[in-house]
């Protein structure tokens, strides 16, 4: 190890060295912004400086050719700077209005999609999936690609009542987070345990402790130390799978998708909210997941038709009520929609408030 190089522990780099000069100059000095057209923001600084931001959608898993294409476009049209949004959309910058249209044309000619600003359906945020996660029940990039193919028109315009954030998660840990609409894996059968491997691969007390409902206990199986799951108690969450891969939770048939709505991280109007279950039992159907997309489109269509300006999906439903929502989107309301987890009482209607 004598010739190993010591790391330089610099942590998070200073962004000013990579920042468009107009942003550097006006740091903390912006006056207001406008939305001249979908995909474009215009920020005006207190000194009158104007910066147009052009936002594009990409495949997110970028090959180096695509990354270099983005760089070339930025060099030719936007002073050599790019910023990425939290939903992985690259942003390009120009300081003269006349340079906006040529940049948009160039981006579109190169196959990128300009949009995703204001009250559009912006790019689905996605996790890793089969491409490179170790516990995924589904793919993420493929789901996002399939859905964006269908939702692209709503990405390119800003015609929703408010912005729509859609997320995916390929396990129930839900690292995709909260979304106006979330498409998440939902397992429906307990893990299948490969008892031959447990003793070698898993720290049994850790796995026992990981289960949210205490359904796992140590056991001897075929003369070997292993684990046992109380299948009546098991909620099929998959929490035991990461620390113990022999507890295989993913299943070609029984791993399904569920759709949740009304998650919102903004504090605008109401406090931030968690998403709520609306549909489950949806087949995990590669390569294009048509069943899940159809439900998402139905929800979006009703939201677009029925919500008032500025209402996010969750606020719209809060106003019209859940019974009406289920009726509009033609989804069944089942016993599984009624929460029985911690704090569930808070979600029960303890009033005479009923809509007719």
């Amino acid at each position: 190890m004598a010739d190993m190089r010591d790391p330089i522990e610099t942590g998070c780099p200073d962004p000013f060295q990579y920042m468009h000069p107009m942003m550097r100059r006006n740091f903390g000095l912006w006056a207001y912004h406008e939305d001249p057209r979908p995909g474009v923001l215009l920020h005006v600084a207190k000194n009158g400086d104007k910066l147009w931001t052009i936002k594009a959608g990409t495949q997110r898993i970028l090959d180096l050719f695509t990354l270099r294409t983005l760089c070339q476009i930025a060099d030719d049209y936007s002073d050599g700077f790019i910023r990425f949004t939290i939903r992985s959309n690259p942003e390009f910058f120009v300081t003269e209005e006349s340079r906006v249209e040529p940049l948009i044309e160039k981006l579109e000619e190169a196959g990128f999609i300009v949009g995703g600003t204001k009250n559009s359906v912006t790019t689905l945020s996605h996790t890793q999936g089969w491409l490179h996660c170790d516990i995924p029940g589904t793919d993420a990039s493929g789901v996002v690609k399939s859905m964006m193919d269908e939702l692209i028109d709503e990405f390119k315009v800003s015609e929703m009542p408010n912005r729509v954030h859609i997320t995916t998660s390929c396990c129930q840990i839900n690292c995709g987070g909260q979304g106006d609409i979330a498409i998440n894996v939902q397992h429906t059968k307990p893990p299948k345990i490969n008892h031959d491997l447990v003793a070698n691969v898993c720290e049994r007390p850790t796995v026992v402790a990981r289960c949210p409902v205490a359904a796992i206990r140590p056991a001897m199986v075929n003369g070997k130390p292993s684990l046992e799951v109380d299948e009546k108690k098991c909620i099929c969450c998959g929490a035991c799978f990461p620390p113990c891969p022999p507890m295989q939770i993913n299943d070609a048939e029984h791993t399904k998708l569920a759709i949740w709505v009304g998650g919102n991280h903004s504090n605008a109007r109401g406090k931030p909210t968690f998403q709520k279950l609306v549909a489950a039992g949806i087949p995990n159907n590669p390569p294009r997941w048509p069943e899940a997309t159809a439900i998402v489109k139905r929800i979006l269509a009703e939201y677009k038709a029925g919500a008032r300006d500025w209402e996010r999906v969750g606020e719209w439903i809060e106003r019209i009520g859940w019974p009406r929502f289920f009726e509009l989107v033609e989804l069944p309301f089942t016993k599984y929609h009624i929460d029985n987890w911690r704090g569930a009482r808070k979600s029960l209607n303890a009033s005479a408030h009923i809509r007719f």
Partner: protein
Amino acid sequence: MAINKHHTPMLDQLESGPWPSFISGIKRLRDEHPEERINKMTNDLLGQLEHSYETRKGYWKGGTVSVFQYGGGIIPRFSEVGHAFPESKEFHTLRVQPPAGNHYSTDMLRQMADSWEKYGSGLVTFHGQTGNIMFIGTDTEQTQHFFDEINDYGWDLGGAGPCVRTAMSCVGAARCEMSCTNEQKAHRLLVNNFTDDVHRPALPYKFKFKVSGCGNDCQNAVERADFAVIGTWRDDMNVNQDEFKAYVGRKGRQHVIDNIITRCPTNALSLNDDDSLEVNNKDCVRCMHCLNVVPKALHPGDDRGVTILIGGKRTLKIGDLMGTVVVPFKKLDTEEDWEEIVELAEEIIDFWAENALEHERCGEMIERIGLVNFLEGVGVEVDPNMVNNPRESSYIRMDGWDEEAVKWFDRQAEAS
């Protein structure tokens, strides 16, 4: 040299349609990249992915891979079907910390692309859900070489495992008129104070910092950060009445009433007869709605600072939690202010590291021990901003009431 390309009928279906296709991108690396190593690696990656699509199963397993002197930052991936897809049988991801606010020059992006081309698969994502640049796909040996090279020109690994994770901050002051703080400074000061805890996982579980410049919370900090910093202000909001009246003139009074006045969560707004806006700043909760609707006329006040919420997280293990207000307002002007926020973070991480169960997030610990015990542990006084409402259950022992009441009045006296 020609390679034996895997047949990928399912993935091929993801090449049609108008949205850019990641499959086409991977195929370009397989078919057009001059480097044979990359052609072969991406070919086998496609082969394994097709196998996943056919069988509806993932085939990566974790392991232990790190770089010299670090314990984290790499997501190890070993294929369970490596015999069939040997060229991508090790396909680790390097998590690299982006600059605060995700700004890049193309020179820098190209330099990183050149390095990644030498050592990796040629696939990269800006950014993963935690906020890292994800360099996806390289083997154990090249992991070290790639890191050495990019570390030399200013890039460091992020967190993976039970450690302080890569932080995130919004574009903020760099390009947003709603920004109430220096997001990038907060981001870097906080996370870079814990560099050792980022690189050497030794905490109960992950710990995330996220910074948003206002209540719009573009970084989802309340929802998914253990330590959320949200910009806000405590004086009156700035109203440009001329701009506001012009807006009313353009849009009409009904539009303004329906979209602004009646949408304020605390009824803090009123439309005057002369089309100017009256704001009851005592009732306003800085939700950002009215400012979002008329960004030309309404702006945060001048006495700015941040609200700090602790304990946001995703589902595992006890269910999703939002962060809870622990510091209702903190100025971040002087160097002393900035030191104090870092000290608070240290205090919280130390207390959590000592008191959490294994694999327990900070918010889960607070849920288990109660907010009051947590506050006492980290030396923060109770404040009515921390609750939606006072307790509803009488089942509590309150024989310390008189002393606690005195403390409150003493603090009030001190503050005034």
